[in-house]
């Protein structure tokens, strides 16, 4: 039986964000005898979970119920989620957030010391736990710090995964570059969990960090796992125009107004309810994100948005909340506005526009995080279980990372505990991979050379133009063509940086190649879904079509730039498809 020395583990988790860290703790608590490792291209506490602001949803109050949380999630998702997964999710959510509390997470409290909850878009009852407006930051640091107390959890910090090792039908580890030394390593594992986060960086204006390039999605896709529901990309209605920095939904939950050029609360024109001076749940500014972002586009068409150097925008008005409330409930909003827009939201209105925020789709998994490849699992934003369907509700995804991170952890551990033998000769794949990298990125192309930044820019443009908030067959086809060309041109980049030490030009090239693969899946899935549902809006097919499309899309890579899309029906348990109603 082959052995792979010190870099051999039972379970290897790729990603040190909320999902990955939660998985690591679940494994070591349930199976202390297993060797578990977390590999991450940045130190875990730098993962983008850190930027989540608003909160995490779970039922704890007496006026709430699991069925209410499930219904809000399902209707928010425009019925495209699997209801068995949603039921498991809402049921396990409270315990997960409570577990975080026991690990020290500084949740906001009521006067009597109980957990406080706030309202959030699309939720009809207040159920979002929060740690001021730095929930993701506190959640991630709590998880990371707690993980430090478990000695069995090993870490590969600043290792960049370049491929999955799948042999004899099983995933048996990964190949990764140790950034500090440039060494290419095979890390063997009996099971691998991809917790690599989202892919917002495919688009030009996004709340996502530089590292969110869909790596895990592309790695799984290349290994033969389908990407599910990739056409569903969430725009957040309130990002800062130049930087894409998020102004959390909590700002609206606390009572912020969205105003057009004329100072008018335009959402009242889009079936989102009557304007009231105070926030009303599931209404107006607290409608779901897809509907708010679409309303912005319509206002833009009517010429009622404001023109700016970084695209059109509208105003988010928080002035009436007053300095005290802003400082108490949404201090980070004030800090971000001051630092990045040079304005004080207690005195001035904030310019905002829709920006890409989250991708509902991802690596196809079952309810335990298992992918169709034996030994390969996925959780968090990288995965699509699916509970988010056609539109994720704000504050569901941090909780999702915890619930499904723990589930995938347990399932991967159980599989690994079977101690299947590794295949022989796997280390050879490292030298193949080395040659591939050399050929891909370091060949000379003379004056044919392409630049990473150039291709990236064109990809951004193609995605914004063709696969944005509103899509048509023409726009998508033209973007598909561009992405194919860019994939060709990618083979002609030659990296200037020939150092082995911390070669970020090389990792950027990899990230670009991952993004292009994921982009192709987004576009093809969007082209073939000839209906409008949730965040996927086709101008040429404006209606929802349950007859044909109450099903998940599964995009398989074919190698010629046009994925094959298959469909799998949605699981319905207790909530038959209905109309999404807000503002009532």
């Amino acid at each position, binding site marked *: 039986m082959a052995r792979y020395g010190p870099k051999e583990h039972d379970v290897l988790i790729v990603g040190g964000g909320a999902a990955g860290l939660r998985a690591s703790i679940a494994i070591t608590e349930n199976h202390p005898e297993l060797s578990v490792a977390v590999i991450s291209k*940045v*130190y875990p*506490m*730098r*993962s*983008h979970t*850190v*930027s989540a602001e608003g909160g995490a949803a779970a039922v704890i109050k007496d006026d709430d119920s699991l069925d209410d949380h499930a219904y809000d999630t399902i209707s928010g998702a425009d019925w495209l989620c699997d209801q068995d997964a949603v039921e498991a999710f809402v049921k396990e959510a409270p*315990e997960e957030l*409570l*577990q975080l*509390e*026991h*690990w*020290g997470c*500084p*949740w*906001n*409290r*009521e*006067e*009597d*010391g*109980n*957990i406080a909850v706030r309202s959030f878009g699309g939720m009809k009852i207040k159920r979002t736990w929060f740690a001021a407006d*730095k929930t993701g*930051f*506190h959640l991630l*640091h709590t998880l990371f*710090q*707690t993980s*430090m*107390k478990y000695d069995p959890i090993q870490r590969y*910090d600043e290792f960049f995964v370049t491929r999955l090792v799948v042999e004899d039908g099983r995933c048996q580890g990964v190949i990764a570059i140790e950034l*500090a030394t440039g060494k290419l390593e095979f890390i063997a594992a009996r099971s691998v969990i991809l917790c690599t986060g989202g892919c917002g960086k495919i688009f030009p204006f996004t709340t996502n*960090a*530089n*590292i969110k390039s869909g790596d895990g999605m592309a790695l799984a896709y290349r290994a033969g796992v389908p990407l599910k529901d990739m056409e569903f990309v969430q725009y957040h209605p309130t990002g800062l125009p*130049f*930087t894409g*920095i*998020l102004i959390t939904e909590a700002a609206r939950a606390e009572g912020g107004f969205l105003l057009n050029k004329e100072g008018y609360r335009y959402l009242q024109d889009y079936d989102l309810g009557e304007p009231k001076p105070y926030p009303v749940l599931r209404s107006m500014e607290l409608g779901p994100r897809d509907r708010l972002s679409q309303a912005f586009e319509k206002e833009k068409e009517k010429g009622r948005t404001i023109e700016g150097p970084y695209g059109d925008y509208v105003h988010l008005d928080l002035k009436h909340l007053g300095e005290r409330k802003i400082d108490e409930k949404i201090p980070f909003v004030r*800090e*971000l506005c001051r*630092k*990045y827009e040079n304005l004080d939201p207690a005195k001035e209105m904030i310019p905002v526009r829709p920006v890409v925020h989250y991708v509902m789709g991802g690596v196809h998994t079952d309810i335990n995080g298992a992918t169709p490849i034996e030994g390969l699992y996925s959780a968090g934003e990288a995965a699509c279980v699916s509970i988010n369907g056609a539109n994720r509700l704000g504050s569901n995804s941090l909780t999702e990372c915890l619930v499904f991170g723990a589930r995938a952890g347990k399932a991967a551990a159980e599989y690994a505990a079977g101690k299947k033998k590794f295949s022989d000769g796997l280390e050879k794949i490292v030298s193949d991979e080395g040659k591939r990298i050399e050929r891909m990125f370091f060949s000379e192309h003379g004056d044919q050379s392409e*630049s*990473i*930044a150039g291709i990236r820019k064109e990809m951004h443009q193609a995605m914004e133009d063709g696969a944005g908030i509103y899509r048509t067959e023409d726009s998508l086809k033209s973007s598909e063509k561009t992405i194919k060309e860019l994939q060709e041109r990618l083979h002609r980049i030659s*990296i*200037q*940086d020939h*150092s*082995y*030490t*911390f*070669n*970020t*030009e090389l990792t950027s090239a990899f990230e670009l190649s991952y993004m292009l693969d994921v982009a192709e899946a987004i576009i093809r899935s969007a082209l073939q879904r000839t209906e409008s549902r949730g965040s996927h809006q086709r101008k040429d097919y404006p209606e929802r079509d349950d007859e044909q499309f109450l099903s998940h899309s599964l995009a398989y890579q074919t190698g010629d730039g046009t994925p094959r899309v298959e469909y799998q029906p949605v699981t319905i348990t207790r909530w038959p498809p209905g109309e999404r109603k807000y503002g009532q």
Partner: protein
Amino acid sequence: MEQTITLQVQRYIPEQYPEPYFQSYEVPLRKKWVILDALNYIKDEIDGTLTYRWSCRMGVCGSCGMMVNDRPALTCATFLEEYAPGPVRITPLDYFGIIRDLVVNTDDFMGKLKRAQPWLITDEAKPLSEGAYKQTPQEKAEYEQYSMCINCMLCYSACPVVGLEPDFVGPAAIALAQRYNYDSRDEGEDQRNEELTGEGGIYSCTLVGECSEVCPKAVDPAGAIQRYKATGAVEWWQSVLMPWKGKS
């Protein structure tokens, strides 16, 4: 013509040159650009080999700390315009080993964080079935400030003691220990004291206070150390005069 500004960036590529050197780049001086935007401009448009860490570009992931004109700063939260007409000097964080260009070695810092035992310590584990701990907003306020640390390490680069005494656990790690010590749910203070009042612990601090000056998140590590010394001293004094204390 667009206004420009010169960045003098310290380079170091170990396989190629044995010593660090400076390289100048001219970049546009754009409104709303932070220093990090200028570095990204260099990387994308001028020199793909320039190497630095960054991720969130919103001052919360803690990866983009560097010395800007010899002062530690988060480069994604520092406007370029403030340095007009330039030139601006960008060097890696002081007192850390350099891996390459602006990337410093973080391993030591990670070890120091762990020395603070930054997790909730209780005498007995509370089962989940008992529900949440109660903690009033006032109790939360006791440790809140210390929980805001983004591990950006600027305070280490501002601290002369870190430079002189590499074993000094340092400002952020002590603040982190206090974050748990002052948490009403925690009972691990004694355990942390043992670590932090010993060699390389709080008594190495000479109260320069620069750490709190440069902290981008108002964590006030200097204040945390002060408060620690007060309690730490009492504990030490008690263990000398009252040898039975802590032995029951």
